[in-house]
Structure formats: C-alpha cells, structure tokens
C-alpha cells in the first residue's frame, strides 16, 4: 500500500464521442455502483444527482443537416488549479497525489455549494433530499460505497470503491502496483460501444495515454488552464470547436 501511494499515477479517461450512442447505460451503472438514489419526486434536471451526465448536443443546423453527438460529462479531474479544491472552506475536496483523483469527502462538507459554483464543467451535484430507495432495494446497494446524506455536495471519484478493491487485491498478491484490468470504473465497464477508455495517463505505454495525445483529441475549456484529465475525441470539427464552452443542454 505504501509503495502504491508513492506511485504517482495520473488516472484519466479518453471518451470517443463518435462512438457514444447516448444509450445512457454509463449513467445507470454509475448510479448503481455509487449508491446514488433514484430521483425524489420533485427532482428535475437541475436538482437531480448524476455523477455522470450524458448531454445530447446539436450542431444547430436545421433538418436534415442537423447533426448531434452525446457528450458524457463528469468531474473532469482537473490537474491544475482545481477550482473546487481552491474554494472549499472545509477541505472536503482533496486531490490524491498518488492517483491524481479529485476526491470528495462528504463527512467534511457543510453544503455551502461554493464548489458547485466554482466548477466550470457543472459536474458537481448537491443532495437536496435524503437518499431514498424503494422498500427492499436497500439490500441491493453496493456495500463498498457509503450513501451520502442530504445537504452535501457529491461528484464522480472514478469509483473510489473499486480503486480500494484493486489496491487490496494488489496488496494481497504482493504487488506494488495495481494491475490495469483490476481498476475499471463502472461507466467504462458498462459502455456497450467501448467509447470510454480509462487508465493511467502517466504511463506512456498505456492506451489512454496514447489516445490522449492522438489527433482530434481535446479537452473542454482548455483556456481555463485547469488541465482536465478527461479527454474527448471526435473527428467532427464542429464538435471539437465546442471545447471552449461547456456543453450544457
């Protein structure tokens, strides 16, 4: 464990927007994995909690020149001047130096929502209601992830429960490093189109590292200098031109 903590990995993703069919399985897999409760009756797209949200985005042309892509938007795991870390008065947001993952600590969160205001990607969500599952469903929750209470902010943490499980497995096998296949977030695992590639960006031999440097790969809002670790790929120029604005529907 100690050696793993010193490994200085930098986990990230490359999402191929040309492959994404917008099926939404990643959103559901994320909610099931991370015990994100179903919507409260009054919840809307503004107050709902989706650690990963797929936005349909159009090129704005009329029929039939219209074209669309689906953009899975999650915490961009900013690697530089991480805005949510800077503003949190409670130190409830931390960047793990061993993985580069921006983690959220709900126990410290006081619910001020400065982080939500600061996040340029609108990838943070607030628990407006206590989490409630239909009667009987609680027995089906993931035992590795604690549900969050009303009044705290939450966001994607690259399925931290799975990272812990992979670390435990590596330690049990006497390995210092996590094997690549042992740590796969739920959205990556469930994507039917294999549109999401996940891995260690610091490892130049890794596929995700290679793809992040490939042509037609881009990050959102690069001008902010936040160095997101989520990269997107599209051969369509109009899609790449969106990089300078958050793709909110």
């Amino acid at each position: 464990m100690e050696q793993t903590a010193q490994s200085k990995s930098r986990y990230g993703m490359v999402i191929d927007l040309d492959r994404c069919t917008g099926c939404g399985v990643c959103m559901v897999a994320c909610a099931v994995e991370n015990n994100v409760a179903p919507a409260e009756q009054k919840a809307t797209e503004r107050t709902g909690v989706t650690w990963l949200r797929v936005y349909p985005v159009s090129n704005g042309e009329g029929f039939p020149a219209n074209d669309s892509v689906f953009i899975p938007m999650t915490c961009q795991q900013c690697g530089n001047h991480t805005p949510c870390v800077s503003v949190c008065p409670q130190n409830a947001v931390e960047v793990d130096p061993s993985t580069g993952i921006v983690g959220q600590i709900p126990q410290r969160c006081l619910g001020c929502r400065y982080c939500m205001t600061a996040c340029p990607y609108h990838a943070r969500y607030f628990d407006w209601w206590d989490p409630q599952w239909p009667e009987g469903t609680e027995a089906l929750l993931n035992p590795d992830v604690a549900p969050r209470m009303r009044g705290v902010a939450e966001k994607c943490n690259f399925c931290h429960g799975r990272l812990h499980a992979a670390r435990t497995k590596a330690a049990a096998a006497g390995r210092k490093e996590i094997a690549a296949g042992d740590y796969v977030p739920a959205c990556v695992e469930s994507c039917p189109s294999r549109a999401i590639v996940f891995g260690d960006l610091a490892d130049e031999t890794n596929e995700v590292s290679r793809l992040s440097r490939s042509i037609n790969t881009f990050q959102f809002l690069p001008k902010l200098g936040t160095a997101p670790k989520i990269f997107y790929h599209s051969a369509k120029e109009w899609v790449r031109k969106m990089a300078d604005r958050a793709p909110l529907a």
Partner: protein
Amino acid sequence: MQNATETTAVLIAISEREKRPMNITRRELLTFAGGSILGALFTPIPWKLLDDSAIWTQNWSLIPRLPRGPETFTFTGCTLCPGGCAVKARRVNGHPVSLVGVAGHSLSNGILCPMGIAGHHLAYHPLRLRRPFAFTGKGADSPLVPSTLDEIASNLAPMLKDIRSSSSKGTIAVLDQRPGRVLSDLYRKFVSNFPGGIYAVAPGSEDPTLTTLRALCNTTEGTLGYDLENTRVILSFGAPLVDGWSTPGRTVKLLQNRNQNGLKLIQVEGVQSRTALQADTWLPIMPGTEAALALAIGGVIVRQNLFPAKIEKTSPDFHTYKTLVSKFEPEDVAAVCGIPSSVISETAHALASNPSVVMSGYDPAGGPLDSATETVIAGLNVLLGNIGRTGGISLHPPIPSPGATTSPAVGLAQVPDHSVRLLLIDGAESGHTYPLSLLKRKLTADGGTVVMLSPYLSSRSALADYLVPSPAAFESLEEISTPPGARRSSFALSLPLLKQPDTTVDPATLLAKLAGASGLPSVGAETVESCLRQRAHDIWLSKRGTLATPTGSSQTPVMAMASEEELWKGLSEGGWWVDNMQDKQVNPRLTLLGLMTPDRYDKASAPALDTTGTLKLIPFGWRNATMTASVAPVLSKLFQESHLRSLGGRVHINPSTLAANALSDGAYVKISTHSGNMTAQAVADPSVIPGVIHAIVGPSPNNTASKDRPEAEGILGLCAVRDDGSWRITEATIAKA
C-alpha cells in the same frame, strides 16, 4: 476629617447595601452569557456535541443499511426482453448488488442495456403486484380488490366450461408476449383444448421482416435469422439497431468493428435517431413513403438486371413485381420521399453488389409499418437472392421440441374482431407496447374477460378483470430462447437472484389451476421448471449443438454428454447452448409480393407533408421503457434528472413546424386526432422531419403512481389502428393548449 456622625452614616449605608439580596441586572446577565459562550468555544464541549449529533443523525432509521456478508458471483441471463443477454451478478450475502455483461458470451458480447444494468431493482418497483387482484368493474377507474388464485379459478370455471361446450359465443385466447419459449408450447397446448382456441403473439414480439418473409417463403418450418456477421450492407427501415434491437451486443459489436468487417449501415428514418446517427448513411425519409422507396430500389435492381438470374424463374410473381416497380421511377419517388434519385440508385447498387440484408423494425411504441410496406421491404430480400445466402437470411432448425403443439400461432391483428370471450395475457414482456384498442376490438361485445399475468400494475392493466402477479425479472427460473433475428437457435436459463414472493404465481401453475377448474386434463407441467427440464431433455436427446461455459472459455458438444443431468447442470451454472445444425433448405419458389396485390401500391404520388394543417402523429419509444412499470426507479437518471431520454407526454416537433403553428419550444400543445385529444409538452427538435409530431411513449415523470388505477394510456390512445394491426402514422392537428 470626617466626624463620627458622617462615619457612622457611611457604615450604616454599607451595612444596608450588604443586607440587600443580590440583584443581577440585564447587562450583567448578558455579559455573563456572552462570556460563557466565548469561554465554551475554547473548550471541547461544543465540538464534541456537534460531532456526536452528526453521528447520531447517521443512525436514524431512514439511513440506508448496506448489505454485509460473503461475496459471490452468479451467471444468469436477463429476461427483460427477448434479447436474453448474459449477466454476471455480484452478490453480497446472497443479494445481487450489481449486474454486468459477460465478456466471453458469444451472443451478447458482454453488453447490457440500461434496463438490464438495473434489472435487479425492478422486483422492488413501487408498482409491483404482490398478490392477485380483481377489478370490481370494467375500465381504468374501477378499484382493485384483493383476490386469490383459487377465487379467480373458481370464478372463471363456468366460463371455461361454457367455452369448451362449443355453445359459447366467443372463445379463449392466450396472448404470448414472447413466443418461442417452452411455456409458449404449454399455452398452445392449453388453448387447443377449447373449440376455436387461439394462440396469439403480441405485436413486437417477433421480427417484422422475418415474419413477413416467412409468408413470402410459404414455410412454417424452421426459424429465419440474419447472418449479420457476414453481411456487408444493411438497409434498415427504422430498425433501432444500436438502441434495443434483438440482442444489443450483437449489432453494437458489429458496428464497432466496421473498420475491420467492412459493414455499411444505411438507415432509412424520418428522424435522426441514435441508429441514424451511427449509420454510414442516413436517408431522411418522409414517413409513410417507405413502400415507394423500397419499390424504387427494387425498380433500379430490376431495370439494371442487378438481381440473380434465378429469381426470374423461381418467383412466380416476378413479372407482376416488375410491372409494379416500373411505376416507381427514382425521380418520381425522390419527390415524394425526399431522398435524391441518385441516392436511391446508389443504394440499390450497394445492396446488389454486396452480401446484404434489408430489414424493418418494430418501433417499441410505434409498432410495425403497414403490412403492404413490410411486404415490399421483405420482398427486396427475395429479389436480391438474400434468402439462404451467406451474409443474408438463413433458415435454421428451431430448438428441439417434442412438437406437441396443436394450435398455430397467429398475430394479434389476425385474430378475428369480437371473437375472444376470455383472454389470458402472458406476463413476459417483449419490450414493446401497443394501443389497448388493438386488444379491445378482439374481445366480445360485452368486453370479454381478461386475465393478465404481470409482475406490475401497468397501463395495460386497465383492460384486465383479474391481475395475477407473475415473478419479476431475476426472481424465478426462466428460459432464454433464441432471440429474434439470431443466426442460430440457442437456449439458456435465467437463474433467480432474488427470493420470489410466496404470493406470486408461476404461469404453468395458473394454467394447471384453470385446467383443473374447467375439468380439463392436465396440460403436462405444473411448474415452469418442469417445462425447462423437459426442454433440456429434448436438447440432450437430439444430440445437437454445444454447451458453452458461463465465461465462454470452453464448449462441450451435447453429443459428448453422458446424461441429460450433465446438460442441466451446465445450464444451471449459467452455461448456454447453441445449435450447430446445418441450415435448412428454403423453398425455392419465393414470392416477391405474397398475397399483396399491386393496387395496394398506387401511392407514388403521396401528398407532400403539410406543416400547418394536418400533421403526422408518430409514436416513438425505447424498448422496455414504454411504460412506467417496466423501468427501474434508478432510471430516473436518464428520464427525470437529465435530458438524455424523454419522458412520456412530450412531443418532439421540428422548430419550423412549431413556428408555422405559432408555437414555441416548451409550450403545452393540444394534439387532436379522430380518437380524441390530449395535452403534451412540445420540444423543438431539429432532428425531426418537418410536418411530424414525434410523440414520446415513455415512463411518467415519477415512478410512484397510485396503485388504485393504472396510468392513462397517453398518446397511444390517440392512434388509429388499421385493419392490418399497424398504428404507425395517424393524422393529427396541434394547437396551443
């Protein structure tokens, strides 16, 4: 110096003041309180109290209790739709906590859809039926009263005996929503005991092109399937190939690997659907002109002799077809359907010069295209010589079965109107929905009696007189038989992951009860498990095919299995059986038009779409998500908490159409058809062709609808159902609500 008198006075004053009781002023009290608070902040007391109270609140009863216990994995299969994807379930203390696809599975390729990923939550749906119920009257407003299976059977016994005696007006029918199962055989056997008993299959439960092709082939034997793995061009008339068609993993994987396999997808659709977005070519067609396009493509193939020469000799109606397609010149059709004549010609050449298939698709809510259109789409396969060809459409042997079925299967549309006195609706779902009026008109004039097996109180429950709770997904042992369109027959078991409530009813048990109540002999099996064991026995006896292990790592030929128990054990561990029999020979005398007469196609001059007067109302759905009850509550992430999928009650309309009708994005509009009217929210959507109301049939905004009455039918209640059972297009008008 003070004198003695003054000194005495001061002393007396002091003495008097000391005698007075302590009098605390307001100022002194506030000073004390402020000081105490300030001082307390420098002690651990408040911080400890805060911490303790935070911990205390986390032990409230509403805080979810996470499951704890040993972790195990079970291989099973998803039965939410006929796709039958393989599932690996992670279980903690016996409870399934997550479901994922099985990477090595040769049919589903490790892929699950959003409904499947959350399938284990469905058993706890707020609309779950947990005991039999009866409606006290007809209609959606009548309340539900608790009942028992014995009560229902005894209430139905006189009617069943009456139907058996042949004196009854009207007969019994079973509506199977997922034909091809061993349970389907049981249903057929059951209805064959009644004069005129009908075994009907529900709309959407079979592939429409293959169903039509079966009629063109004039064969009842074998199962038709697409050899997509060797196909190079797919011409799809609206089949949702990447969004819930057959086994999703099959087509998604093929399309992912287009760079390697050279597959081209041409999608013909009036909306830029998810499949259209992923297609190599999208042909945005005016809805209702699909037949004209298919005939124009056929015309190019015939005129330029792009078809196999043998077709002219083997198809008895070739010359009729040739005459018909001569009326559909690409230039004329282009003006009608909105697709350039050059593209029509290119499409015809692409189909003729590659192994190809032409298919249509049931929309999960919009249903099939009309039968005349389905015929010419299926007929293109005949013209191209795709039947029995590699990369085309094959006729393969069905799953081994004792063949004891006596009632033929008919589509619901073919059931004579007002002929059904007692209708039994099966609880399995095809993932598709249909207007209730399609069912209603099959019932006798008095409304008949409807017994509905279902895990949930769904919109269809409005028609039921008796509701019998069947097991939900992953609650009971079920079968996964050949998915529609599959290349080979296959069979697997869906093993239960959850405890089945004692009050739910096994469909085979219901049949046995009804048989007993009506004095019938046994239908052969008392439980679904006994039916499934019989099927495994039949497969073992046939010595056909191989059994793959759950992860797909190895395969064992059935021929090499010493006993049927060995096969059953393998299936019970999550293995799956795939047939390896040679394809059957197809009847060489294939017709191109079947029973359709050419006068059905004199529509090359269909009127151009109107954007201000009468519009085309087209219902649209997503497989398994057309009803509130069929969607796990956590799918609110897609429907309610984001804009990824539209909720029911919304209509997508092109911005130009909205503007022409003085409406705006987000406005509430009144949609009127001959069947009635309803209010819906308009969504300006440039991906929808102008002149069309693309009406979403989906779940309600929340999943906690009242249990006393089923949800309203919504947009499907406005659709006009034609004689051929299709309801894809209905004329409608819109106005501001």
